[in-house]
Structures are given as structure tokens and as C-alpha cells.
């Protein structure tokens, strides 16, 4: 099969030049370096919490923190978006440019793959062999057939997959190392684009709730979904925790799973992650006849109930509940313990009406029953789980994209592409062999090919010309 080649270089226009510039590997390098810098900034500097975008209190706390930590540079860093890299305009433009560059390179690659499959460029003009990485021999000791066989053997040994075309007194050979490097590059580009798509999807559709403190038996509605989260059990041991969490939908239980610091609950498109746990006190009360007394916590929207759940965070935090029918207010304070291995302890004070002096002032170190003004208050010292619900449909794209990109990168690195062309011509009673290689500058395969050809031909290098 003969291959047609264009007579000369194609006329270039502005669009052509723009295409070349935008798909240039140096443009890729420049963009990747700036993206790498941006990622390093995002890794090194604290990024604005999601809640700060909608909650002014959180935002002002965040700004105060920034000014406290970066008193001299804080304003400048805020102005350039260094504390909000992934949502800054410059980063989006940068990613858009990188995606554009990757798309163009992907098209170029697809074209190369298509061409390499359809018509391997076996036949090359003489001028092709006058460029770099080429070598020319004058063979005198071998017949025509022996020379062709030797060239074929050398190409098979060093590069693989030789193809050949024969014309009158001229034979052309082409060999390349196989499709893997090209496929690797294709997969790498597709993977990188998938990561970008995943990042965009996460940014557009993803959301997460604030950390929710949930005691055993408690449940809470998840954001604006129709799901409800319930904690059925919580076991704490050696600083680790296992929370049995149930995701409830309109029709009942959707999913149930044990959540740990390393294993979330996944169901209904949501991910419920265990962020930690903390001490809590669960209070129930009854009078001296055993009748339950209604209690009410100070949480917004709380109603009188038979049980209140009081979660605590840092030592010194205080929680209140009221006993409406007794006119009592009970205050609990988490006390800092000197013994880090000891469980949490609480100071408990109860006040009646507007009296300044408490009717009860004591310490609670374990679950206990406390008598206040003739009623009995059962105070169970336990824990709450700190849970966070996220919805991120982009995660899977990012994960698959990273897998593809890293796999493609490995193929490219470990199976680099090498091509070689050889022209064998009968000239003036002798045989001339011209070889040309296309390999990376550090790739030794062309040198290997040259030595193999020399060995096979036992050539007399009359012209001894070698470039590259």
C-alpha cells in the first residue's frame, strides 16, 4: 500500500496559530504550574468555611480570625482570593483555560491515534532522513534481500511492529512501539478533564450541613431534603467511636449503618460522616409519686418533653433547662478535669424563680439521681455524636478521573512512544540504508536501533553521518 504525502507545508492562518498556541505543551506547563501554586495556597492557607457564605455571624467570625492570624497580610490575601481559592474568579478562569488546553490536546491526540491506526506513515521522502536523529549507511557486504531481512530484524528487536512498503529498488520500513503510549496520553487527558468536571459538579450541586450534635434516640431533619437522621446507639472506647445511624425517609428507614471516624453512612445520595463525639447529659425527672415531670431545654424551638438532651463542647460550656411546673432553672457546666483519662464531670446548680441562691449546688461525675425540692432528676452522663451530612455528586467523577489520569500517566511514563523509519535504496551498485528515529531525548532506543542495525548490516559507514 502506498502512502500519499503532501507536497509541502500547509499554509498557516491565524486560527491555525491560535490552535497551536492553545494546545502547546508549554502552555500546558505554564497552566499546570499556576494551578499547582493555587492548590498549594489552598492547602497552606485556611479556606473560608461554606457556612460563611450564607451566615453573616460565621462570616464575621471568620474575618476576625483571618485578621488575627494574618494581621499585616490578611487584607491583601482576602483581596486576591487566597482564602477562597476554589471559588475565586481567577482560579475558575485558570481551570477553564486548562480545560480548553486539555480539550485541544485531546483532539490532537485522537487524531494521532486515528491516523496511526488507519495509515501508518511508512513511506517517507529522502529529505525526511536529513533531519535530526538520523543515520546513513552505505552497505557493501550484503545482498539486497539480506539487507532487508537485517533491517526488519533490527527494527523488531528494538522498536517492534515493523511495517514495510516496497517500490522499485527502494524499500521503506516503519516501526513503532505500539498504541499504549498514545492510549495512555488519551486516558490521562480524559481523566484530567473528568477531575475538572467533578470539581465543577461539586461546586454547583454539592452542599454540606454544619456539624450536628445528635444524642442517642435523637433525630434531626437533614437540610432541605425529605430525610431525617437518627442516632440509635453510640459506643465510645479509647478515643474512638462507633455510632449507629439511621437515615429515615418519608416511607421509613432508608439506610442504617455504623458510622466511625473512617467509615461514613452512604444512602439516598447522601453521605453522613462521623466527625467526633462529645460529652452530653440526658435528664429525666419524676415527682415523689413516680409521675414524669416535663422539662424544656433552651434550644430554639424546644417544647416541654419528658427528657432533655444537653450536649457539651469545650470545658466551661454551660447548658440550661427549665422545669416549667416547678419554676426551676437548672444549670450544668462542663468542668475541666486534670485527669485526662477521667470521664467528664459537671457542676450542677438549680435556681428557683428569681432567687439568687441556688437550691442545689453540686458536682456530677457519673450518671446519678439528684433530688431537687422533693423531685427526682435522673441525670445520665453519656455522649453525643458529631455528624455531618454532605451531598457531593462530583466525588465519583473526581475519583474516576484521578484513577484514569494516574493510570494514563503511568502508561506514558513506562511505555514511552518510539518510532523509527528506515529507507533502503539500491544506488550506484551499492545499497544505502537511511534510518530516522523519533524518541524522547533521553530515550536510548534509537541508539539501540542504530547499534542493532550496524551489527546486523556489519555496515561500512561510508557517509558516517549522524545527526541529533
Amino acid at each position, binding site marked *: 500500500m502506498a502512502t500519499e504525502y503532501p507536497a509541502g507545508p500547509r499554509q498557516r492562518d491565524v486560527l491555525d496559530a491560535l490552535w497551536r498556541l492553545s494546545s*502547546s*505543551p*508549554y502552555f*500546558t*506547563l*505554564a*497552566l*499546570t*504550574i499556576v*494551578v*499547582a*501554586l493555587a*492548590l*498549594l495556597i*489552598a*492547602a*497552606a492557607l*485556611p*479556606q473560608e468555611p461554606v457556612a460563611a457564605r450564607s451566615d453573616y455571624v460565621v462570616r464575621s467570625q471568620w474575618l476576625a480570625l483571618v485578621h488575627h492570624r494574618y494581621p499585616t497580610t490578611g487584607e491583601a490575601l482576602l483581596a486576591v482570593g487566597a482564602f477562597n481559592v*476554589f471559588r475565586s474568579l481567577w482560579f475558575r478562569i485558570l481551570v477553564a483555560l486548562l480545560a480548553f488546553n486539555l480539550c485541544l*490536546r485531546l483532539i490532537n491526540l485522537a487524531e494521532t491515534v486515528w491516523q496511526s491506526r488507519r495509515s501508518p506513515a511508512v513511506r517517507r521522502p529522502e529529505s525526511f532522513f536529513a533531519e535530526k536523529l538520523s543515520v546513513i549507511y552505505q552497505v557493501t557486504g550484503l545482498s539486497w534481500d539480506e539487507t532487508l531481512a537485517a533491517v526488519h530484524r533490527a527494527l523488531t528487536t528494538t522498536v517492534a511492529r515493523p511495517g514495510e512498503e516496497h517500490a522499485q529498488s527502494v524499500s521503506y520500513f516503519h516501526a513503532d512501539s505500539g498504541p499504549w503510549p498514545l492510549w495512555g*496520553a488519551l486516558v*490521562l487527558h480524559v481523566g*484530567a478533564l473528568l477531575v475538572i468536571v467533578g*470539581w465543577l459538579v*461539586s461546586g454547583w450541586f454539592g452542599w*454540606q450541613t454544619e456539624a450536628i450534635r445528635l444524642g442517642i434516640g435523637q433525630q434531626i431533619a437533614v437540610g432541605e431534603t425529605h430525610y431525617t437522621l437518627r442516632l440509635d446507639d453510640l459506643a465510645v472506647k479509647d*478515643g474512638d467511636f462507633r455510632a449507629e445511624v439511621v437515615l429515615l425517609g418519608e416511607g421509613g428507614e432508608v439506610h442504617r449503618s455504623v458510622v466511625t*471516624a*473512617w*467509615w*461514613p*453512612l*452512604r444512602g439516598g445520595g447522601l*453521605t*453522613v*460522616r462521623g466527625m467526633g463525639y462529645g460529652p452530653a447529659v440526658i435528664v429525666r425527672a419524676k415527682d415523689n409519686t413516680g409521675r414524669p415531670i416535663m422539662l424544656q431545654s433552651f434550644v430554639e424551638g424546644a417544647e416541654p418533653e419528658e427528657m432533655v438532651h444537653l450536649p457539651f463542647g469545650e470545658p466551661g460550656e454551660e447548658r440550661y433547662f427549665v422545669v416549667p411546673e416547678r419554676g426551676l432553672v437548672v444549670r450544668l457546666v462542663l468542668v475541666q478535669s486534670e485527669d485526662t483519662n477521667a470521664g467528664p464531670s459537671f457542676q450542677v446548680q438549680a435556681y428557683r424563680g428569681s432567687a439568687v441562691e441556688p437550691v442545689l449546688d453540686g458536682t456530677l461525675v457519673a450518671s446519678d439521681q439528684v433530688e431537687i425540692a422533693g423531685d427526682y432528676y435522673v441525670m445520665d452522663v453519656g455522649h453525643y455524636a458529631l455528624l455531618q451530612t*454532605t451531598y*457531593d455528586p462530583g*466525588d465519583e467523577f*473526581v*475519583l474516576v478521573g*484521578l*484513577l484514569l*489520569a*494516574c493510570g494514563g*500517566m*503511568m502508561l*506514558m*511514563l*513506562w511505555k514511552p*512512544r518510539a518510532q523509527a523509519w528506515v529507507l533502503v535504496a539500491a544506488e550506484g551498485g551499492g545499497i544505502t540504508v537511511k534510518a530516522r528515529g523519533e524518541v*524522547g*531525548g*533521553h530515550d*536510548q532506543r534509537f541508539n539501540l536501533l542504530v547499534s542493532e542495525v550496524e551489527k546486523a548490516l556489519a555496515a561500512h559507514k561510508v557517509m558516517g553521518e549522524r545527526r541529533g
Partner: protein
Amino acid sequence: MSAVDEVIFWGVAYTCFLAATVAYIVALWRGLDVAALVGRLTGALGAGLMVGGLALRLARIGRWLPAGSGEVATAAAVVAVIVLLIFERRGKLQSGGAGVLVWVVLLDSFVLWSLVIGGQGSVALVTGRANVLDVLRVTLDVIACGCLLVSGGLGLARLIPARWSVAGRPSADALDVEAWRALVWGTSALSGRLVIGALAVYLAGRNLWAAESGLLGPMAAWVACGGIVAVERAGGWRATLAMLATAAALVAMLAGGG
């Protein structure tokens, strides 16, 4: 056992690395084989002492897996020296390792500042919680940083202007070939680390794009490597390019906690 133990080891190792750097530079400048040999020996001794110090530290703390930027940097410096010595045995680097030693000394300075002077740079890690993914992640982190350090170091040696009269100058081709080889190993380890890290973060239900995921730093280094590979495929490879990946990997490791 007191904290002085590893300090002594690392202090002597630092001195060894400094001596090795000077010896390599002398070998590079004057072409003295003896100086290159001294450089190799003191470098190897320094690496051995770093390993000893790290082992003592981990035994004292009660862990077996390096954690935090300081400990990972220690292990990466050791890997860099080992990789350099291997490359020197099989390649034609002559005294091109001078650049690598410069990076190693810089990294070791950080280790001393972080773990000894600052007393920080280490994240407590309960031994029982270090699963297979953690072990793989840290191992690949260390290999990636060590190899990229070598690649960037050879790139540094490639920067020596041609007009300077340097008797022990290695050929630019040799530096390019070996720097590429180190970059290939480093990028491969980084790719594995990125995939494992992403998988662990995803399985734990955490945000892949949050700094706490520990993915942004390696991703930055990997992205820089990707750009360099693109240029290499186009035939524009120079060892000096590797310095970009090295710088990104070092910043990622030091800022991101390893």
C-alpha cells in the same frame, strides 16, 4: 530515653550532609575523584544516621510509621541520598550529585528546625489506626519526594553555565537522562499516592477538596509533573524543568504535613 538521642544523630547527619555537599562541589569544580568519593561516603553516613535518629524517635514515641512533615522529610532525604548513590553507580553523573546534596541539606535544615528546634512538625498517630492505606500512602510519599529531590538536584547541576570552567562537569545528556529517570519514579510514586489518598478520603466520606484531606499538596506536585511530562513528550525535556516538580513536591510536603 530522652529526646537528645535523635538530636545527636540528626546533628551529626546534618554535618555529614554539609561535608558531602562541600566535597561534591569540590569534585565538580576541580574534577577530583577523591572528593567525589568523600562526598559519597559522608552522604551515605549521613543517610544512615538519619535513619538511626528516625528509628530512635519512632521507638521513643511508640509509633512505627513516620507521620507529619518533619518525619516524612527525614525519610525523603534518606531516599534521595540512596537513589543518588544508585544512579551514580550505573550512570555517568560524575559529580552531578552536588545539586541533590544542596536540596538534601535544605530539607535537612527544615527537619532540624521543625523537629528539634521547633519541636513540631509531627502529627501524633496511634499505631493501631495506621492501616494498609496509611502505610502505602506514607511510603509512596517518601519515595516520591526522594526521587523528585534527585531529579531537581540534577536539574540544579544542569544550571551551571557552560562558560564556567568546571572540571568535573557531567554531560548535559547524562543529567537529562538520569533526571528523567528519577522524575519517572517520583511521578509514578506520586500517582500511586494520589490514588490511594483519594480512595481513603472518599471511603471516609471526607471532602476531596478540603485541606484536611491531605490531597491538595500531592495533587499540586502531580499537576506540575503532568505539565513537565507534556513538555517532555514534545521533545522539550531538560533536567532543569524537574526543579519545578521538586519545588512543588517540597512545598506540598512541608506545608501539607507530609
